[in-house]
């Protein structure tokens, strides 16, 4: 399993948000994208998820360009946005039913990633009555319905308490162990330390960054 992102460009009007963004990763790796608010992290993740069109560039998963072939993206890539993309009026079960085939849902809840995320514990709770951590876990659960090989997460544990964070991290570790590629846009130090490779996004340019537990250095460079 290998992915490569090559020369992604994006411009909003006169502002060039992303300039020739390139990186690559193999199965089991976690790539962290670091940068201050407004630096373009979410834009990059959204492009890779197929929500925004890039002006140029490619995103190869194995040997197929996911930016050009929708089916590749639908089959192999999953995206979890910053918030909680679930329907508040529906229960966890009904939310999941929108994304999973019944037999897959049953299987995932019994022994799959949905079990790892602990969603089986609050299946019949209406989303509007869930805690933020439950919503986040449910969001991830909905996003990974296609058993993805590449998981794109935009600040996955922002505003979660420690217990919820740990549930999410448990899943992310399991995902990487299964050979998946994780791409994280994050501000979280623990998540940065989880990454096998980090990149700093500043003024539209992505540069490799090696985090060595030096917060001052990170703050100076960001």
């Amino acid at each position, binding site marked *: 399993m290998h992915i490569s992102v090559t020369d992604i460009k994006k411009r909003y009007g006169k502002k060039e948000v992303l300039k020739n963004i390139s990186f690559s990763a193999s199965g089991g790796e976690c790539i962290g994208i670091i940068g201050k608010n407004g630096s373009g992290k979410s834009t990059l993740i959204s492009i890779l998820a197929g*929500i925004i069109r890039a002006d140029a560039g490619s995103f190869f998963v194995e040997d197929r360009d996911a930016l050009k072939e*929708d089916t590749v993206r639908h089959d192999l890539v999953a995206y979890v946005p910053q918030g909680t993309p679930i329907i508040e009026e*529906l229960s966890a079960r009904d939310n999941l*039913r*929108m994304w999973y085939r019944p037999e897959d849902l049953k299987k995932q809840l019994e022994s799959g990633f949905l079990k790892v995320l602990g969603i089986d514990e609050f299946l019949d709770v209406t989303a509007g009555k869930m805690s933020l951590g439950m919503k986040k876990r449910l969001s991830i659960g909905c*996003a990974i319905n*296609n058993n993805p090989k590449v998981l794109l997460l935009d600040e996955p544990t922002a505003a979660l308490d420690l217990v919820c964070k740990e549930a999410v991290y448990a899943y992310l570790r399991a995902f990487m162990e299964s050979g998946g590629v994780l791409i994280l846009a994050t501000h979280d130090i623990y998540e940065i330390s989880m990454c096998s490779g980090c990149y700093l996004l500043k003024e539209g340019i992505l540069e490799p960054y090696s985090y060595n537990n030096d917060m001052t250095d990170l703050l100076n460079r960001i």
Partner: protein
Amino acid sequence: MSTGTYFYGQIKRIVKLFPGIFTLSLVFALVIGVAGVLNARHTDYNKVTSKYNVGFLCGTDDALLSMGLQFIGSIDDTQLIVNTFQYDTEEAGFDALHNNEIKVLVVVPDGFMDALMYSDDSPVIKLYAASQKGITTVIMEEVVNIFSDDMIYTEAGLYSLQEDLDYTSLSQEEKTKLNDKLFITYMNALLSRGLLTEIEHIGLGDGMSFMAFFFCGIVLFYTVMLSFCSISFFLDSHTEFFMIARSKGVKPSSQILTEYASFFISNLICSLFTLFCVYVLFAAKMVGIEEFSKDLFPRYIRFSGYFILVLIELTSFTFLLFEVMRGIINKFLLPFLVLIGFSFLSGYFYPRSFLPDAACTIGEYLPTGVAYDVISSGVTGVFNAKSMLMLAAYTAVFLILVTYARRIRIERGID
């Protein structure tokens, strides 16, 4: 995720929200229905009692002028719309105007009758209106027409004939006899015309009976406002849900179509239930309109068919408004103001033809105005191809615009 499962989710949502939506729509239908029926039954226009009070400031010592004013308030063209009052003094006339006893004061200057006789146009009649826009303007025009067509020309003709008599070689006694005969003939002609004309008050609005006009207005206003009963469908921010659905292959167009379908089905169920209740009232003859007095069932079915077409268009319009507005207050307030304004211009509360020309034209081409024309076709049974085409075009345009708005919303992550 497929478009089908996305649709399933939206239907589930609307089902969860439906008890509230349905209850609200019933309460709303009841309130607007009762208010509308009471208004239609007791309105002054229906009783033909709401006349425009017109005051005339002129000398009461001129018998011919007084007679002319009396005729203004009694002949066929005017008896339904004006009451006349005559004032001797300027103070009395303007007091009446300021006290809202009259809407217009017509000042007939001294020497006006002599000017008619000698074809001198220097003394000009002046009209003072209590207000200047809207219905007052329309009635003012009517009053001017009455004055110019019925009073001035007729009496100018009478004076000319009197003047012609002076040039004959007849004696004064014979002239007086002929003069009286001429005057009596004139009066008889006016009275005969008034008596021979039977006026049937068929209504106010666009070829429909009075009650049918009100029925259409009430139904359309209900339809426009019905969407507010479902506003909970639009209140939570679902941008990230739309984003993730987009990344899973559910395109904005598919999202919009499935959401619109769910929204429409909810509105359809609520409105069909309300229409059924109205049908029961019609069948029980508790309320009624002239157009449905015969063959109620087939005509009501025809009307319901047209209504569904209108519902398709108005639902797409409100869907667009709710989609583009951000924030709970804006989402409610701005569409409400837009829809109230559009409803007024489109003649939901008052016949469109009573509005000034420009407003009338604008109202006709607004989406709400097109809906009015289509639904009135449903009442009268007269097919209006132009309105149907415009209705379809508006629906298509709204759905395209809302799809575009959704695409922008997803791409920019607008909450």
